[in-house]
């Protein structure tokens, strides 16, 4: 069985590890910060570039490159924002870090803020994590008392403070420009890009870096072990470890930290997670949070990898890194792996997902606002016993009218599950129509 390689969650689950600063210091806490202050900000940035670190929030964008886009000539203050809105269904990794080891995040943030020269940092935490917000605020208070935060940190001449800001419970606040709007006190309507790229016109129209919790923690470890050493974990282009969150029909769901590409989907499910429930067969896997495209158990995935080598995978062969699920036509997203066995009604599963996205659509732009709600109504009606033959194609068509035409990536997040579910399980959608007990022209069961 593949062994976990814990870097981020190294101490989190140790029985005597507590989240207070004394315990953190006992385990070498804030030593890396002192090391970082001996470096130049640009040197830290170079280490992050060398490490090949990719963002852990979902898009997998190279972190060093993101920092490079910062507009340093504007003369405006630079802000660092930690995206702790972790709201993708199937994802619960950042919670572990913040609840069990908050000082690791704070240390990572101070180092990152030092590197990008941000004097003010924010942790935007999802509204439902009220306990997490309290934990972080306590931790920040402890760090301030020990002079790790505030004016002239450890006599380095660098000053920085962190403010914890709780959201009000909206998925869209995980989108970085929506998050920024919310942080400014407005409705979290994502901004149009161009011109509002956060690195140029972010928080308060100032250059801003928004990074995920796990990403910022990784910065600490990169400074500790150097970017070069970090890049040796995993494979080129897929460096470091990732925390995978496995949920659904497996015997041991949970979070597991492995080097990128350090194991396959099969090893993860059948060995690490103890396999499916007894007597069950795999039906489908969503590899990267509910917005990722679903993978069907009996699919074959063929193509060429970035390095030119050809691959021919079954679902168990997909390597768990950034590029593996992407090569299979989906994405690793935020690392939320959702397992569905043969007890799953695929139409109901989709109905559940569309209900989520219809509820969470911010309502700013037309295709997402109207289209996603429409998809919810159709899938709900199908589950209610009034499915029609044309519903599958209609769902596909609506999803196609949303994808790529919205202000933010929510359009894709809502369209991809529909496209992939309907496309790959069309027979089940058609079967629904054939066995549907009610058939109405109006689409409204109550009017029949």
């Amino acid at each position, binding site marked *: 069985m593949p062994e976990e390689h814990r870097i981020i969650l190294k101490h989190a689950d140790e029985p005597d590890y507590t989240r207070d600063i004394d315990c953190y210091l006992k385990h070498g806490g804030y030593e890396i910060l002192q090391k970082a202050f001996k470096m130049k900000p640009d040197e830290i940035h170079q280490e992050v570039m060398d490490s090949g670190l990719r963002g852990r929030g979902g898009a997998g964008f190279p972190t060093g490159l993101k920092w490079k886009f910062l507009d340093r000539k504007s003369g405006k203050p630079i802000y660092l924002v930690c995206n702790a809105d972790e709201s993708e269904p199937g994802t619960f990794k950042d919670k572990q870090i913040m609840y069990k080891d908050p000082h690791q995040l704070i240390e990572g943030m101070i180092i990152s803020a030092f590197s990008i020269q941000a004097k003010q940092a924010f942790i935007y935490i999802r509204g439902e994590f009220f306990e997490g917000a309290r934990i972080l605020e306590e931790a920040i208070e402890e760090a301030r008392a020990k002079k790790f935060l505030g004016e002239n940190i450890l006599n380095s001449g660098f000053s920085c403070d962190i403010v914890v800001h709780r959201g009000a419970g*909206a998925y869209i606040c995980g989108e970085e420009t929506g998050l920024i709007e919310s942080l400014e006190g407005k*409705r979290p*309507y994502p901004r*149009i890009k*161009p*011109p509002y790229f956060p690195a140029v016109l972010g928080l308060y129209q100032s250059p801003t870096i928004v990074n995920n919790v796990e990403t910022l923690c990784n910065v600490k470890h990169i400074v500790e072990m150097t970017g070069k050493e970090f890049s040796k974990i995993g494979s080129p282009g897929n460096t470091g470890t990732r925390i995978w969150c496995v949920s659904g029909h497996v015997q041991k769901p949970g979070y597991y930290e492995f080097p990128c590409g350090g194991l396959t989907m099969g090893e993860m499910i059948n060995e690490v997670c103890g396999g499916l429930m007894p007597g069950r067969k795999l039906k489908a896997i969503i590899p990267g949070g509910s917005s990722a495209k679903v993978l069907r158990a009996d699919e074959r995935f063929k193509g060429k990898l970035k390095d030119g080598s050809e691959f021919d995978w079954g679902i168990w062969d997909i390597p768990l890194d950034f590029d593996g699920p992407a090569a299979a036509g989906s994405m690793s997203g935020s690392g939320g792996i959702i397992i569905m066995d043969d007890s799953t009604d695929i139409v109901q599963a989709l109905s559940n997902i569309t209900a989520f996205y*219809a*509820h*969470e*659509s*911010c*309502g*700013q*732009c*037309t*295709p997402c*606002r*109207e*289209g*996603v*709600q*429409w998809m919810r*109504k*159709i899938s709900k*009606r199908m589950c209610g016993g009034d499915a029609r033959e044309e519903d599958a194609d*209609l769902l596909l*068509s609506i999803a196609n*009218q*949303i994808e*790529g*035409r*919205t*202000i933010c990536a929510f359009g894709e997040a809502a369209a991809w599950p529909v496209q992939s579910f309907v496309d790959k399980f069309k027979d089940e959608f058609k079967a629904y129509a054939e066995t549907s007990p009610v058939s109405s*022209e*109006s*689409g*409204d069961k109550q009017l029949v």
Partner: protein
Amino acid sequence: MSDNGDQELVEIFVDDQSVKVPPGINAIEAAKFAGKEIPHYCYHPKLSVVGNCRMCLMEMGTPMRDRETGTPIMEEDGSQKIGWIPKPVIGCSTTISPGMHIKTESNLVKDCQEGVMEFLLVNHPLDCPICDQAGECSLQEFAMDYGRGYSRYTERKNVKPKRTRLGPRVTLDDERCILCSRCIRFGQEIAEEDVLGFIERGSFSTLACHPNHELDHNYSLNTVDICPVGALTSTDFRFKMRVWFLKETPSICTESSVGTNTLVWSREGKIHRITPRRNDAVNDTWMTDSGREYYKRVEAESRLNQFQINGNTADAGAAIQEAARLLDSGRSAIVASGQQSVEEQYLTKKIADHLNAPVYMARHWEKGDGLLLSEDRMPNTRGALLTQLTTKLPQETLSELGEKMNSGEIDTLLVVGENLIDLGISNEQINKANVLFLGTQSNSTSEEANVLLPGLTVFEKNGSFVNLNFILQKFQQAVPGPAGLIPDIMLLGKLLHRLTGNETPTNINSVWEELSSKYPEFTGISFANIPTEGQELDGANYTQLDFPETKSLKFNPVNS
């Protein structure tokens, strides 16, 4: 009038058609230069860009260059290769750049437009038969032009409030709202009264006033104008009239010296509403709520609609004859008005010259709002200066006139519109003098007048005003005046004829023949050739005057 006139034009390609456009504009505006329409809802030329309706999706590409060397990448045929963005982009936030290519009619663009149209309509009620916006609704127009023509939606539509009172003049039908946010941005960016916002989310989003606020500022009805659908409706106009029955006449608002350009909407001689007319040098696309009420003066109780001599009804000829007799025999003075058109002021000036009568004007200065309501509440003070009806700014009171009346130096007054009681002249003084009153609304002065000469409102005649930026703007007759009344120009012309016995101009064209030959500022102008956007005049001779206007939307005071 464009500021871009001197800048170098940029060549772009709209559906492969080369067109030169001013730099810095967006693709929606640029496409117009190629005669192409990019449909849009949320974009408004005078508001910030939010890109939420997605109706202006189009394809865009720019000439490719090698990333390393910067040298252009060429096609085999020698033209520069175009790097097309793989996804459709919105036209409103796409600033054009040299060599940019855009497609407005490709299959992908059509598919986007059909998709967005379908989405906009899935929760939109089929209210068109009872909707005030019908006939001037972008949703109707674009559904016809860019929609599929049928709907695939068979689910239940969302239900929202149908008649929310947002303020004293605006009623909201939330089901019709397409959430374009134009009204919200108008409040934030133009009126600077941030009272509107969205509540709820997703397709249940609803427009509402912020708690304990209502949409009651003096620009609230502009939200109705810019609403692309029938969601925001004018409470005054709601359910009154189908817009396609209405005739549009360009006019000028007489509320202040700004001279807001308007459209007067009338049917069968009755005015139903007034809306702003775009003029980027005067009022952009806005106007005040208060200015929209002015048409109600046409049929007001106080309206003067009969010629009278000493309180008895008379015909026009007799009244003018009596007026001429009194002026000729008395020691006259004239109280003229900034409400008079340039042409009327010119004729008044001629009468004054003939009688050798002093001309007085009263000031109507109030607080301005910094936007479209200036301090000078007379639309044509500058016209009086240009026609040399007066050489100084209007006076706060007419006490000088009062003294002359006391001393007997003046015993006959021709009063245009003003109420002398408000201007420091007593009832006693008025009773002692012969008063000829020319105006549209009755007041205590008109009630005491020996001769009453009823005039026409700005909606019932042709003429021109000079606004605070010395822009000459014309207004045109929208509706006929009350039976038996004649245009003020004709009235003053006939009066002048009676006084002098000479041939005098009695219509607007003959007045302009004299104006253009007499005054250098008016040289070359005839009424017909005053452009609809107005004509800037030379106001250099008047810079030393202490005009009351402070900064407003399109005005920067010289002496500040």
